[in-house]
């Protein structure tokens, strides 16, 4: 079962220095922009001197991500470098250097906002992702209790009665180090059947693109955003999501 996002975070480890209340109030105002603001957490975070910087970097990042459809269908090398740099800046300010010791921070539902994986050229044509099928949102639901991660790829087929469906890949994960996990593929399903028919011929190709198998380094984790780098050299940037994905 998908775990819903918990709006109220449990008390976090006191990794931050304390600051006068007035200063905390001012910084809290700035963080209002983001949806899932937990006043307690915001106060704790705003006590870090770099949190203003972080929110600025995030703003720049969202700006850079405008209009590129998560980078999956082709971005110029200039844009890629720009985003790469912003991500590295964020990673240098990572408030959670030991995420696997604080798995509650990664537990729940996340939505992909950028990745270096690309579906282009012949691959894109073969999967019908040019005119026929649209790739919708990509979610990752992490269930810490069961050491399970489910990747959900939404698809939308024009014509065919605007068929909506998804590919769900279930994987289990093991902790390797304080920031790294190893992911093992378990199973995958396409629902509904009509969508399965559409992808029948190219199922292997589809899986090869979205298969999460291998290790994953969690290079940045905070309440709203998570960055991961995998074994194949790919980068994934996700934001916390409230959406229910029915599996």
């Amino acid at each position, binding site marked *: 079962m998908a775990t819903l996002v918990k709006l109220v975070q449990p008390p976090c480890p006191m990794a931050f220095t304390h600051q006068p209340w007035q200063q905390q109030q001012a910084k809290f105002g700035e963080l209002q922009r983001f949806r899932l603001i937990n006043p307690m957490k915001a106060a704790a975070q705003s006590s870090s001197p770099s949190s203003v910087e972080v929110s600025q970097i995030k703003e720049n990042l969202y700006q850079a991500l405008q209009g590129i459809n998560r980078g999956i269908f*082709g971005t*110029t*090398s200039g844009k890629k470098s720009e985003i790469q740099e912003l991500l590295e800046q964020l990673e240098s300010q990572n408030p959670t250097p030991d995420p696997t010791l604080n798995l509650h921070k990664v537990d729940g539902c996340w939505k992909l906002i950028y990745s270096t994986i690309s579906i*282009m*050229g*012949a691959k*894109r*044509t*073969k999967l019908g992702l*040019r005119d026929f099928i649209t790739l919708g949102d990509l979610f990752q639901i992490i269930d810490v209790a069961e050491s399970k991660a489910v990747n959900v790829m939404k698809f939308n087929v024009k014509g065919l009665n605007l068929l909506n469906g998804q590919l769900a890949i279930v994987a289990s994960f093991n902790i390797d180090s304080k920031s790294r996990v190893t992911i093992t593929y378990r199973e995958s399903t396409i629902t509904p059947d009509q969508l399965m028919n559409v992808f029948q011929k190219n199922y292997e190709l589809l899986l090869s693109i979205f298969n999460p198998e291998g290790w994953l380094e969690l290079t940045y984790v905070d309440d709203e955003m998570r960055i991961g780098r995998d074994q194949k050299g790919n980068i994934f940037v996700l934001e916390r999501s409230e959406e229910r994905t029915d599996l």
Partner: protein
Amino acid sequence: MASLTMVDLVGCASTSSNASLDRYLWRKTLHSSVSQRAHGVRRSGKLVTCRLDSARCRSISTKSADTLPNGTPEMLLNVKRGQISLGTVFDVVADDLLILNQNLKSIVGAENPVLMSAAEQIFGAGGKRMRPALVFLVSRATAQMSGLKELTTNHRRLAEIIEMIHTASLIHDDVLDESDLRRGKETVHQLYGTRVAVLAGDFMFAQSSWYLANLENLEVIKLISQVIKDFASGEIKQASSLFDCDVKLEEYLIKSYYKTASLVAASTKGSAIFSGVDSSVAESMFEYGKNLGLSFQVVDDILDFTQSAEQLGKPAGSDLAKGNLTAPVIFALEKEPKLRDIIESEFVEEGSLQDAIDLVQRCGGIQRAQELAKEKAVAAIQNLECLPRGSFRSALEEIVLYNLERIE
């Protein structure tokens, strides 16, 4: 800028058609009018020798020139400018084409004023009427063999059907490609909207099916129906292999057959069938149409690379930009792996499309495509050997050469 090319067509395997071609071209030189830039009535020739045995082939051509009253071998080799004009090639069937034009307008326009304007737009100026001309030329050439005195109504109807199918496919193609201009004029869907364009195309496909059925010749009905099926197959084949760098030349030729050569081959074979000639002759006519059609498509694909935007009426390299990998690209991919990466990136980087075009030219992709076009042209001319010599057969040969001229 085009020159009359004396294509040393058949290599050394069959010198007879080579010699006849030379003699024919010399006759044309003496009789036809040429563009102002040529000297007197002499047309220039540039020997393009075959790869097999160039010295021997050249001497054979020279020999046949010697037997002609007014020429020297030097004239063949001097590059003076002249031009095959399709107008003169089609002279022998000019009346047939006039009647065709009138009939077409009345068939299409009769139903509806909007359709009439659309018909004017598309049938008006610009179309070369190459396919109907082929029908008439093959009809007349084969009629001579079977003792037919005059073209039958079936022949004429066949030509009209062919041109309607061709035009319908162009109208729909323009909708699919979202093109604004065709032959320098606005496309039907640009002027009247997509709905009218789709309906006009459907109407013409439907009308041609009805006329086809009324010809009551099962072989021809199957032949032409196959073409409409092939059009769709060709488009689907193309759409499903966009940006696929593993595409083989064979697949490209099949796709080109479906999209272009199928209709031409059906036109030429159908004409032969209605002339009542031997099935072996009809088969040769099918092969002629097929090879001519393929040669034509390859030339079109080369021009997409070599012509400027003004000449093409659309940006250069638009096939490549869409991911439609044609002969020059397929050949270039064999030589240059870097090209593969650029194509796979779908040209997202600025200037990468131009880089790809330059790469294709540098790797000799254009040259090898030109050789392919010539190879098919040679085969087409060979297919004409069963026809009696005369102005009709000569015109059919000239159409092949006209096509090659476009890339000289």
